């Protein structure tokens, strides 16, 4: 074989190879430029993307503040650890498949999981969506076992609210619910989807203080979202323990006394405005609300015609009935319409403006002064006052006693009540006020509406001989009312009214069942028609509707009063028959408690 290479000219082929090599060289150089661009020029951008890639922020929820009674010894709301399962959409590429697997693993309807995901679909995909809470240990173990093939499902721990005394004080404490869209909008600084927020009561009013400050955990995660380590940890700060003004023993007693009825008991300290007991029946167990996912129980509560969620003490509107008579008395004495010893004659009935009006006692009370009119709750006496005092004057005195406006109690939802006036009638009913209507108002009927808490605050003002207080439930809150003008009602007028209330309880008056030996209870009963007398007579079988609401409000002792008790029992019958004895038991308990020799001196 000859070696052709020696004779052949390969220069053309070699030149072509060199051109290709040149192209390779240029491409290598441009690759270097490309790397320079992203590693040097765009370094900052990619560096921050890398950090975001590998870390995950986890919120460590702060336990809610512990709530106690006034002594700090009885815990009314506490926390314990609970587990919840959350779905991180970012950790899966097949969302529908994940939902199916999660539902299967947790024995849930796939529709429930889908609904949860749908609800929060606008949130960033890395945010965990709670799909089930209150996991059992068995469920936690099941999720942990599937950690590697289900990285999108994680177990989070959270402190869970617990109310050790179940329904006790539920209307004071309130309850928790998952924050809704509205809440999230109003408190973006501390609320995240899935958070529980206080609704109603102390939990609602002081949510910001009770919630505490959440902690933060920055985790290092791999591409599947599996935890590889911790980068930063800020421990949560629980809200500071809060003591309510509630006297635990009185509260328990009040709820015992109301059990099985519908009604309200309010007890407060007239000097400070501290609420010692506040019970509203029917009631509910706030522990039931902490579950995010049983809407059935919620519905039964909301749809219950007796409305257990209603805090009747500040949201229930009732005619004050005879409880309004002390206000009428003050108006009469204050305006000089009557003097302390002016008497009217009660013959059981009287004709006013062409209509016959009856006293509850058809035999009549004879001649009586204001003191005895209050003692016996004589209607005729007050009809006579109603004839002589214009409605706007009555309204002014009612306002001076705190009616027709909120008491300012530190739990939300309070109603204002209603004190009618000529102007009110003109603006709302477009009619003039008829003097006949004043006669109804004079015995606390007509359009007049009050809440039991207003009645309690009014009673405190009577007991203080004019000085008003602001009822409150959190110790340390102020009980003073700011910017109150001087009522101008003379002290002797209050003494006349208080004398009447004292006689009512202690001298065979209508409030006698509230009497407590040695405690100088002063009080007033009331029995208010829930429907007009004519309607009641028409409904023959109306067992409940025919009965009147039963009221009692009072304080003790007569001088330097220490406790106000207001009782309302719906459809309870006569005030003296039902409400007064309940109040009596509470006065008795209070006295016994404070007369009790102290076991620890100086406590």
């Amino acid at each position, binding site marked *: 074989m000859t070696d052709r290479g020696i004779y052949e000219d390969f220069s053309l082929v070699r030149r072509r190879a060199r051109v290709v090599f040149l192209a390779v060289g240029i491409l*290598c150089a441009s690759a270097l430029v490309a790397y320079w661009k*992203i590693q040097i020029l765009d370094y900052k951008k990619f560096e921050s993307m890398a950090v975001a890639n590998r870390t995950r922020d986890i919120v460590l929820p702060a336990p809610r503040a512990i709530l106690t009674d006034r002594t700090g010894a009885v815990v009314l709301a506490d926390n314990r650890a609970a587990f919840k399962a959350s779905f991180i959409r970012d950790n899966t590429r097949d969302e529908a498949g994940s939902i199916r697997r999660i539902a299967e693993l947790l024995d849930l309807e796939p529709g429930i999981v889908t609904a949860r995901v749908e609800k929060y679909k606008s949130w960033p995909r890395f945010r965990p969506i709670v799909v089930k809470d209150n996991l059992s240990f068995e469920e936690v173990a099941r999720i942990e076992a599937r950690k590697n093939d289900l990285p999108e499902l994680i177990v989070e721990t959270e402190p869970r609210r617990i109310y050790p005394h179940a329904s006790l004080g539920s209307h004071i404490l309130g309850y928790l619910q998952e924050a809704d869209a509205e809440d999230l909008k109003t408190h973006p600084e501390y609320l995240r989807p899935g958070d529980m927020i206080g609704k109603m009561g102390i939990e609602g009013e002081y949510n910001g203080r009770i919630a505490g400050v959440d902690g933060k955990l920055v985790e290092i995660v791999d591409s599947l979202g599996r935890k590889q380590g911790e980068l930063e940890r800020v421990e949560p700060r629980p809200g500071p323990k809060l003591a309510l003004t509630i006297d635990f023993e009185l509260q328990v007693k009040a709820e015992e006394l109301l059990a099985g009825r519908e009604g309200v008991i309010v007890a407060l300290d007239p000097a400070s405005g501290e609420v010692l007991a506040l019970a509203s029946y029917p009631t509910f167990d706030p522990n039931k609300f902490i579950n995010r996912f049983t809407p059935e129980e919620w519905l039964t509560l909301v749809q219950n015609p007796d409305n257990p969620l209603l805090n009747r003490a500040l949201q229930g509107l009732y005619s004050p009935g005879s409880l309004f008579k002390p206000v009428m008395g003050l108006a009469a004495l204050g305006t000089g319409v009557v003097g302390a010893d002016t008497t009217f004659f009660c013959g059981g009935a009287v004709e006013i403006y062409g209509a016959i009006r009856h006293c509850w006692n058809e035999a009549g009370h004879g001649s009586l002064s204001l003191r005895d009119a209050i003692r016996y709750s004589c209607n005729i006496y007050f009809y006579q006052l109603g004839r002589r005092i214009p409605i706007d004057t009555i309204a002014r005195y009612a306002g001076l006693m705190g009616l027709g406006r909120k008491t300012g109690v530190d739990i939300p939802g309070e109603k204002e009540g209603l004190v009618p006036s000529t102007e009110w009638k003109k603006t709302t009913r477009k009619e003039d006020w008829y003097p006949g209507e004043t006669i109804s108002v004079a015995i606390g009927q007509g359009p007049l509406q009050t809440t039991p808490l207003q009645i309690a605050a009014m009673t405190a003002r009577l007991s203080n001989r004019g000085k008003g207080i602001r009822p409150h439930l959190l110790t340390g809150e102020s009980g003073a009312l700011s910017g109150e003008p001087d009522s101008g009602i003379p002290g002797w007028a209050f003494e006349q009214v208080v004398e009447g209330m004292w006689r009512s309880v202690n001298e065979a008056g209508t409030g006698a069942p509230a009497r407590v030996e040695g405690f100088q209870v002063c009080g007033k009963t009331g029995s208010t028609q829930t429907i007009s007398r004519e309607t009641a007579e028409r409904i023959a079988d109306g067992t409940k509707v025919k009965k009147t609401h039963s009221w009692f409000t009072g304080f003790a002792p007569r001088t330097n009063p220490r406790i106000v008790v207001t009782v309302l029992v719906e459809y309870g019958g006569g005030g003296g028959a039902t409400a007064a004895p309940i109040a009596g038991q509470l006065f008795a308990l209070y006295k016994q408690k404070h007369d009790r020799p102290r076991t620890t001196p100086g406590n």
Partner: protein
Amino acid sequence: MIDRAQLREIDWVLVALTVLNSLVGLLLIYSVSAASGGGLAWKQLIWMAAALAVFFLTISIDYKMWMAFAPYIYILFLIFMAALLLFGRTVAGSRSWIGFASMGGQPSEIAKIVVVLVLARIFAEYRASYATTGMIALSFAAVGAPVGLILLQPDFGTAMCFMPILFGALILAGLTKKTVAVFLLGAVIAGVAGWAFFLKDYQKKRIEVMINPSQDPRGAGYHVLQSQIAIGSGGLTGKGFLKGTQSGLKFLPARHTDFVFAVLGEEFGFIGITIVLGFYFAMLARMFRSVGKSRDRAGIYVTFLAAAVISFQFLVNVLMIVGLLPITGIPIPLLSYGGSSLLATYFAIGLVVNVKMRRFANV
């Protein structure tokens, strides 16, 4: 087969550069597999030993002999690959992996070098300044047969690697302006037709994503974006060996094969990239320089086509992971993990050394 004079002519510089680049690859593979015990790096080390054996086997047989056998090996491979299509097991959606022993082998990697030999043989006696239509058709047929089988697997990336062999050979043989124009027209038509009829949706998506990677960061754009984040966050000096967070935390896909250069960028920064790019370019340059040292046309073709196919894979990979080319499964020879790729590369470089060491020999 091999005498002492030829032994002295072995291009030890090229051998050293080849081994050096293989060791860089080993280091990177160790880094990505360190968390799981470094098993892949050990496997790659064993493959390297096998590859060196292949290298010495390659140079010990005269390249003319290799070329003489090339058509038979070529036909054997075609039969083998066709059989694989029928009976092969599927790995990652593709049927090219042979299941013998625990180490997989990919015959199409070796097939590339066999096609290099076949094309060199076709053009060995071709002396005209420009390739005729007949020669072009023959070249297309020679490359088309294995490529067709590979596309049926389907393995788009590996099939792509035959392009530089075919067009390298044609460029060397000479293409007239008219031929280039016909090729360009054909490419446009094929491109349009391919887009309309042949490309699968995921492949189209990859091309779209290259143009705008953030359009779908969780889907097809995921790989490009993650790779860019890894490289970009390496900065000038990198995060340090074994300290790459994006690769260590598995944000990077196929870290040990297609994205091994991204691991380099993340852990060793722009400095590391520059150095390794320099090593690799030195190796390629050494191969291209060998083109001028060949004593015959066959040797020129063998050397040039081997250099072209390695350059092509390197450039495509390096540009693809920074988002300048669409993502296709093309590993970097020597740097990426893979036994058959390593064997094929040492086989190719062995042929280059073979040609150069025998430049004075009269056979």
